[in-house]
Structures are given as structure tokens and as C-alpha cells.
């Protein structure tokens, strides 16, 4: 009952026309200010009505794709986030085509290698158990050396199991277009190895029913040793070789020129592509198509060119080329002032953004002063001031109203409004309040365009990227290689240069050799 006066001011404003809004605003300002002064003494949450109308003159310019939450700030009811704008529709359709139809393709490789690994691990146990099961009576008893071998076998199997689990059994985060050469090689090696062991086992042990059990145990132990060495080889080939940096990759985004440099080791092109994409999602600022082009007002002036009339009879074949060349030459010679307009437009844009940002920062700072965290002991010891205790969500909604308009205007000026819906802003506000963040920490998300990772939705479908390359994608990186990673509306071009070879010399400086003299330039008159 203490808040509904302010909210009613908003909601009935929205239902009337815009022209009469300004008058109503001024009246409301006086009314709500007097209301505020009376209620401030005994309530902990007060909301001040804003001093400006909701829509100013320049808000009709620009995009009006997603502004349903700013004007009708019915904060309490919270119906606005269910309206689907055009942006949401295109994004949803993009999501649908992003999902690969065969989800299982992602897991085919690891499942195969998992089966092979399991088979290889169970083989020594099978080698040990089969003679026991089949011809136990005729086996020679085997004393302490066998027990030592049992223990070492068990321990080595345990080590193999744990290290395979730690290193190799991870869900892959990318499906590569071609086979991963080293992994295939290793799997083939393991398979051949185990198969040959089984072959020998079948021929030498099972057939003639070998009685020397100690030999069989030694055979199994040698298999496990060899598996350990293959695992060492796998570790070196798959993990270690590409850790030492050898190449420098320059990644440039084609649409807005954002670029980064990365150091990688010896990788194949497809693995380097996955590596680059991992870092793309956290390093590059998000691609905002609205920020790209020069405003049309600047570019269109160039195109009002000359009209070329041809007098007399000429050949019609070379007429068109001559004409276009003449036009281009004339356009180049003409004094071109569009850079001037671009400069002033940029300056104006900067000024506008800074103004909106200042307003936003002030509004947020003020809004945060209305909220105070309730200490545990205060709740019990102040019964005479019954405050309304709110959970973070309600607190966020309560202080969102005064900053809503400033936030909306700022986002619209920086063309960020497709990325932040009202619901997401309130959720973020709730998060910040819960973790005792200052207004600056809350604003950090909106003042700078963050990396693409920040705007990802949580879905398991994955991102579809296409690797475009002139070389086969399993070949290793080398100098001068260029490949690109294409997505629907932009692509990343990657150039490979080797890191320079460093010739490090040595120079020993004796600490006693640091001596100084004064510089003399005297002039004497004679």
C-alpha cells in the first residue's frame, strides 16, 4: 500500500496518448514529490518519480524493434518480456538451424575409443582368468614370484585406468570435419597390439593348454607394460606436442576488423581452428551488426554523380566502359567532403553516448542507495519500525523502475538493446544485489560490449562453424597458411606466421663496473 501510488502513476500513463503525457508528467512530478517527503521517514524503500517524460523527441529515430519494456513500465505485473520481437524470431530460427540433426555424431568417436580402451584393459585379466577357468587342475602352482607379479599387474592396471579416465575420457567440445589423425593412429596401434597379443595367446596358450602359469602371468604383465608405453606415446602426441608455442595466429573478424594474436604449438588446421574458436568466444567483443556501417546520409552523397552524355556517333561497344571510367575519374577529382561529415557525426555520436552514460550512471547510483541489506540482528531488535522485508527479486524490481528509462536510452544509443531484455536486466540486478556489488559492478556489463560468451544461451546444440581452407584440414600448420572460419553473417580469417627464432646472447656485467663521471663543458673567456 505504500508503493502502489508510484506504480499507478506509471501504469495509467501508458494507457493514454503521448501528447498528453507531458502535462501529466509535470503534474505527477509535483504530486509524487510531496508524497515522497511524507513517506521517506518511515519506509526503507522510496521511489522517486522521474523528472522527464518517458519518451523524448529523438526516441522515434533509430530502431524501435524492442522498446516495449521502456514506455509501459508496468514493472510489477511483468508481462512485457513475453512479447516476441522480430529479433527474437530471427534468433530462434537461427537456433533451429544451428542444431545438428545427428546429435550422436558428436559421441561416435569417443565411444569407439572407449570401447577399445576397455577391451585393452580387460585383456590382461582375461589372460589370467582363462587358464584358471578352463584347465585349473593341470596348472603348475606358482608361489611368491606370481604374487609379486599379481600386485604389479593390479597396480599398473589401476594407473592405466585412472590416467585414461583423467586424460582421454572427456566429452569432446567440437566435431572436426575430418578424422583426427593422431587419435586414429593411436587407436589403430592399440587395436593391432592387443589383437596380436590375443593371437599369440590363442596359439601358444589356449591351444596347447600351457601349464606354466608363471609364464602366462608374465605375458599379461608385459602386455600391461606395453599399454602403459602406448599411453605415454598418446600423451606426448595428443597433449604435449602442441603446448610449446611455435606459431602466431592472427585472427581478424571480417565485419568489423576486430583482431587478436595467439600463440599456438604444432597443430593441424582443424585443431587450430577449434583452439581459435575457444578463444574467440572469450576474447572478441560481441558482433553487433547495428554498429557497422557509416550512416547512409554520408555515403549517399557520393553517389550523386555526373551524367555523361555522348555527343556524336561513337562505337557502342566501348562506350559504356569509357563512360564509367569517366564518371569514376570525375568523382575522384571532385572535392569530397564526406570525411568532414563523418568526423562530425562521430563526434556527435560520442557526445550523445557520453551524455546518456552519465545519466545512466547517476540513475543507477541513486537507485542503489534505496536498498540496504538487512542485518540479522536488526530484524529482531526493531519492532517499532516494521519494514517490509524483501527477497532479492522483489528488491531488484523495486529499484529497477527509476533507472529503467535511463538504461533503455543508453542501450538504444549504443545499439545494444537486442542483447538485453528487461527480464535479463532485472535478473542481473538481482544477482548484483545478492552479492553486494556496487553500482559500477552492476553497470560493467552494459558499459562495455562483453565477449560473445556473455551472451550465449545455455543450450546443448552447439554452434555451427564452417572451416574454409585451401589445404586439407588435417595438414599441419606452417608459415603463410590462411584459413577462415565462416559463420552465417561473418567469418574469421586466420593467418599463420611462425614465431621468430630467438638468438639469446649473454653479457656479463661486473657490478663494480658501474662508474660515472660528470659531463664537463666549461667555457672560459680569455
Amino acid at each position, binding site marked *: 500500500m505504500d508503493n502502489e501510488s508510484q506504480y499507478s502513476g506509471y501504469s495509467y500513463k501508458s494507457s493514454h496518448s503521448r501528447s498528453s503525457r507531458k502535462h501529466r508528467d509535470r503534474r505527477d512530478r509535483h504530486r509524487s514529490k510531496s508524497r515522497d517527503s511524507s513517506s521517506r521517514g518511515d519506509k526503507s524503500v522510496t521511489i522517486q518519480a522521474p523528472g522527464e517524460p518517458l519518451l523524448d523527441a529523438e526516441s522515434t529515430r533509430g530502431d524501435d524493434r524492442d522498446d516495449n519494456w521502456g514506455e509501459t513500465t508496468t514493472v510489477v505485473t511483468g508481462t512485457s518480456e513475453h512479447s516476441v520481437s522480430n529479433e527474437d524470431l530471427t534468433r530462434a530460427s537461427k537456433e533451429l538451424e544451428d542444431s545438428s540433426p545427428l546429435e550422436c555424431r558428436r559421441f561416435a568417436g569417443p565411444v569407439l575409443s572407449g570401447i577399445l580402451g576397455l577391451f585393452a584393459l580387460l585383456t590382461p585379466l582375461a589372460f589370467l582368468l582363462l587358464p584358471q577357468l578352463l584347465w585349473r587342475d593341470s596348472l603348475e602352482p606358482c608361489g611368491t614370484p606370481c604374487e609379486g607379479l599379481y600386485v604389479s599387474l593390479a597396480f599398473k592396471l589401476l594407473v592405466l585406468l585412472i590416467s585414461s579416465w583423467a586424460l582421454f575420457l572427456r566429452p569432446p567440445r567440437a566435431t572436426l570435419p575430418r578424422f583426427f589423425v593422431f587419435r586414429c593412429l593411436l587407436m589403430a596401434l592399440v587395436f593391432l597390439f592387443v589383437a596380436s597379443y590375443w593371437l599369440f595367446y590363442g596359439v601358444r596358450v589356449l591351444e596347447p593348454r600351457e601349464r606354466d602359469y608363471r609364464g602366462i602371468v608374465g605375458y599379461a604383465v608385459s602386455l600391461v607394460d606395453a599399454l602403459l608405453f602406448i599411453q605415454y606415446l598418446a600423451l606426448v602426441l595428443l597433449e604435449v606436442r602442441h603446448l610449446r608455442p611455435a606459431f602466431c595466429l592472427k585472427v581478424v573478424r571480417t565485419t568489423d576488423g576486430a583482431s587478436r594474436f595467439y600463440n599456438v604449438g604444432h597443430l593441424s588446421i582443424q585443431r587450430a581452428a577449434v583452439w581459435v574458436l575457444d578463444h574467440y568466444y572469450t576474447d572478441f567483443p560481441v558482433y553487433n551488426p547495428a554498429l557497422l556501417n557509416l550512416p547512409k546520409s554520408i555515403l549517399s552523397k557520393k553517389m550523386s554523380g555526373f551524367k555523361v552524355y555522348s555527343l556524336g556517333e561513337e562505337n557502342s561497344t566501348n562506350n559504356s566502359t569509357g563512360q564509367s571510367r569517366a564518371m569514376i575519374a570525375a568523382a575522384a577529382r571532385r572535392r569530397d567532403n564526406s570525411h568532414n561529415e563523418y568526423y562530425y557525426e562521430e563526434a556527435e555520436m560520442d557526445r550523445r553516448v557520453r551524455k546518456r552514460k552519465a545519466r545512466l550512471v547517476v540513475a543507477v547510483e541513486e537507485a542503489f542507495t534505496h536498498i540496504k541489506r538487512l542485518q540479522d540482528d536488526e530484524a529482531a531488535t526493531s519492532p517499532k519500525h516494521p519494514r517490509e522485508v524483501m527477497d532479492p527479486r522483489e528488491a531488484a524490481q523495486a529499484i529497477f523502475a527509476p533507472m529503467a528509462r535511463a538504461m533503455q536510452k543508453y542501450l538504444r544509443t549504443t545499439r545494444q538493446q537486442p542483447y538485453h531484455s528487461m527480464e535479463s536486466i532485472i535478473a542481473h540486478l538481482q544477482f548484483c544485489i545478492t552479492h553486494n556489488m556496487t553500482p559500477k559492478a552492476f553497470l560493467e556489463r552494459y558499459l562495455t560490449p562483453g565477449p560473445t560468451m556473455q551472451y550465449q544461451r545455455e543450450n546443448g546444440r552447439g554452434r555451427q562453424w564452417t572451416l574454409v581452407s585451401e589445404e586439407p584440414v588435417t595438414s599441419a600448420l606452417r608459415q603463410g597458411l590462411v584459413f577462415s572460419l565462416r559463420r552465417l553473417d561473418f567469418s574469421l580469417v586466420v593467418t599463420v606466421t611462425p614465431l621468430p627464432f630467438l638468438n639469446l646472447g649473454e653479457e656479463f656485467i661486473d657490478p663494480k663496473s658501474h662508474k660515472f663521471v660528470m*659531463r*664537463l*663543458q*666549461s*667555457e*672560459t*673567456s*680569455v
Partner: protein
Amino acid sequence: MSFIPGQPVTAVVQRIEIHKLRDGDNLILGFSIGGGIDQDPSQNPFSEDKTDKGIYVTRVSKGGPAEVAGLRMGDKIMQVNGWDMTMVTHDQARKKLTKKGEDVVRLLVTRKSLENAVRQSMMH
């Protein structure tokens, strides 16, 4: 005025004879010198070769005996009364110029324009 280590220095020089002026108790010549083997040669604005540690004329007072005799700013002094000035310290140079017993100093100075003039006259 090129200097090759180990070789004798060759230069085109001009003889200048300065009569000292009596000013109270001391005899003044009317110019200032800079440079010397104990000084920093890179600060010398007049030398072509910034490792040249010779004695240079840094200032010539107007109307003084040095200007009257034909000494110019930027000249390098090679000899003073027969004493060598190319490998002396700053203080030694000063002493050689301000000997109380001498009224006249005879200098051998060199400057770039001398060499150019000689070269030009040899070409014609």
C-alpha cells in the same frame, strides 16, 4: 679537419695575431674558448666531428682585440705561440693564452670555410 688516428693532423690554417688589451690589471683577448681533452666533445656545437676534443672559439666579444684581428666564432685553435692546442686540457689551453708576460699571441686557427676556399681555388 679530418682526424686519422696515428697520422699527423693536416689542416688549412690562418695565422691570427692578437694584441692583448689592458683592462685594469689583466690583459684580455676578447673571446671565450671551449673544449679540451678532459671535456665532453659531443656538446660542441662548432665541431664537424663530434669526437673532436680540440679547443674551439665559442664566443668573440664585439670590438675586442680578437674580433679586430680576424678571429671568428667556431674557429678551432691549433697552436698558440707555438704551443699545440689539439691535445690539451681546457685549463692548459687557458694558461697558454693568458700568460702574463706576453702581450701578443699568435694563433693558428682553422675553419671549414678556409678549406672550401682552398679547394675551390684549386679546382679553377
